[in-house]
């Protein structure tokens, strides 16, 4: 009697389990690789945080479990290839997101193409990456979009005639400098000073004097944090008579404002996203992400985390809708057209974002006020800025 009862219980439990299994959608296997260690670790870790939030939010929203496989590529090209070999070859993921730096994304996306696995990156802006016409390659941001924010602001808002461009010899800064120069020249703006400097430069005065002597109205510095600190301090010493100082990445951060104090005021910088800069149609999504991120990591998200989040969200949506087949995922990604926290997202036939534009902001009273593009602007640009002697 007892044995029969036990058998019935086991059978009932088995049937219940089978029913549950049949009713639940299978988990989606998503791969992610990022430099969580090595020289690019800071960026890679932020990217992965955003991806994790996307996987959790997707599961909550759809009820579909996400089996997220994360691989640290150690900021090494060889390991980036190994990452894809593992994720696509062993884990059999339905799509891969992540990758930071063109030197890692280049070889990794080549491996993803070999495995016919959709690959979406948010950290590689080199135009040559998409020139390979890989069918599985997608990215949310690329260089012309950064350059456009600077060049369009200079042309449309500032209406400047002469611009000086100083740029760090690193890959991304060289490329944005060349792209902006080209866009300015196409718009009839002269660039009489176009000077490269090496990482670690401490004396920028000779370059700044060239800008002064050429009568440049705008100084564009395509560099990194130490370059901004050096050029701004030297510009103040020389009382450089430019009407605007525009930088690339890392302007307006708390560290930047702390280091430069009043000198950080009225400086312009570019970003893909900062809190509160989403277009109206995407404000709700922005708020959801920020809330989930804060709850998970007890800190505010960076734009790198936002990009990681969005890339994973789009990849998961496409995999879920398409059933996981690579061709279907690719088609769905190529067909998407949405207004997102970083603006309108749609991909062209090479996988580049059709409408990507960074935002240009000005630091005012320690806050970042977006001044371009107009549909994401939070205020008017203060142009010309006040002289260096008063800040």
């Amino acid at each position, binding site marked *: 009697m007892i044995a029969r009862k036990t058998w019935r219980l086991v059978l009932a439990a088995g049937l219940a389990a089978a029913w549950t299994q049949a009713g639940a959608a299978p988990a989606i296997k998503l791969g992610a690789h990022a430099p969580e260690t090595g020289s690019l*670790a800071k960026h890679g870790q932020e990217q992965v945080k955003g991806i994790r939030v996307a996987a959790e939010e997707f599961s909550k929203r759809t009820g579909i479990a996400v089996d997220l496989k994360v691989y640290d590529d150690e900021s090494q090209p060889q390991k980036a*290839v190994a990452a894809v070999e593992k994720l696509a070859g062993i884990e059999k993921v339905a799509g891969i997101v992540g990758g930071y730096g063109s*030197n890692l994304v280049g070889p990794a996306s080549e491996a993803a193409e070999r495995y016919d696995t959709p690959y979406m990156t948010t950290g590689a802006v080199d135009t040559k990456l998409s020139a390979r016409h890989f069918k599985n390659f997608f990215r949310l941001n690329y260089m012309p979009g950064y350059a456009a924010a600077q060049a369009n602001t200079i042309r449309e808002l500032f209406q400047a005639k002469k611009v000086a461009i100083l740029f760090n010899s690193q890959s991304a800064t*060289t490329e944005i400098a060349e792209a902006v120069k080209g866009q300015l020249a196409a718009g009839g703006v002269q660039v009489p000073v176009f000077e490269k400097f090496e990482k670690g430069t401490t004396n920028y005065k000779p370059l700044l004097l060239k800008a002064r002597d050429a009568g440049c109205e705008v100084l564009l510095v395509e560099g990194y944090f130490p370059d901004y600190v050096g050029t701004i301090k030297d510009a103040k010493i020389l009382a450089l008579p430019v009407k605007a100082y525009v930088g690339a990445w890392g302007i307006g951060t708390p560290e930047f404002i702390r280091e430069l104090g009043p000198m950080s005021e009225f400086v312009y910088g570019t970003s893909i996203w900062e809190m509160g800069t989403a277009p109206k149609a995407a404000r709700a999504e922005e708020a959801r992400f920020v809330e989930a991120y804060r709850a998970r990591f007890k800190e505010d998200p960076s734009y790198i985390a936002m990009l990681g989040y969005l890339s994973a969200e789009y990849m998961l949506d496409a995999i879920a809708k398409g059933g996981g087949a690579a061709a279907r995922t690719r088609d769905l990604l190529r067909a998407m057209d949405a207004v997102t926290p970083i603006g309108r997202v749609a991909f062209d036939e090479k996988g580049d974002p059709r409408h990507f534009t960074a935002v240009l902001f000005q630091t005012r009273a320690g806050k970042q006020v977006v001044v371009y593009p107009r549909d994401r602007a939070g205020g008017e640009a203060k142009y010309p800025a006040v002289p260096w002697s008063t800040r």
Partner: protein
Amino acid sequence: MRWPGSGLRVTEGTAAALFFGALALLPLALSFNPYYLSILVAALVLGSVAVSWNVLAGLCGQVSFGHAGFFGLGAYASAILAMRAGWSPWLAMAGAGVAGVAVSLLIGLPSFKLRGPYFALAILGFAEVLKLLALNLDSLTGGSQGIFGVPPPTALRLGGLTADFEASRTANYYLAGLLLLLVWGAAVLLRRSRAGVAMATVHADEEAAAGIGVPVLRTKATALAVSAFFTALLGAFYAHYVHYLDPDSAFDGAWSIMPIVAALFGGMSTLVGPAVGALVITGLDEFLFKRLFESGHQLFFGLLLAAVIVWAPSGLLGGRVRRPTT
């Protein structure tokens, strides 16, 4: 501390035969899985550079902190010869090795005339100079943007077998293994030669060596040239394997530091030790530590290295392999 079984001692030849035999069979054991093979390729490249570095440091006693310079030089030289001059990648790789020798003599001959740590400092600076050249010779090197699409070595056909280096990890694995065998074989031949005896003498006591008529400068230059040739050759292989080059990855300081770590780990007193060290540290990091800690795995690796230095200062193989008498 005595390592378990530390009483067991084998000759260097036996250790090398076991090591290379295991390397030959490893892909079979791993079912030719591309992921495992790609990790092993990375380990073999590191191992070959470590053995090359040890030709200079282990045989001749000259420590270099700038082998990234030769590695990056070889990578760029081969990529440029193949893509701009139209050379076959195989010929370009050999040409890269020759470029390594030429540049090593340029830097070695003046700096070896100095005593003390000047060579180590000079070669460190030299690596940085080469990186800056790669960054600034835009028309030749692509500058900071790097070079995309470096071609793989052309496929080899042996009977009915084709080694396709573009897509096959197995082909690349065996090529990397052969390069390691070549580097190790050259190091063995060098050690047995008159030049090798001179190197051992210089290593033991430079002044005494000069006193008994050993041409110290020529001996050091020979060790550096051999070391540079193979490091540049491996840099060339790397470029044709990854298909992409930029100054940051080609001249990455890791190519100077990690070969030293591998050599210390495996045992600098042997020629095969650095290669074993490279495989062990790469394997442990990838297959054990990384699984335990996704982003903190290199901490274990550092602890392990510290443990080896403290408790087994002659490295994993140092106390187990009998060195041949010279």
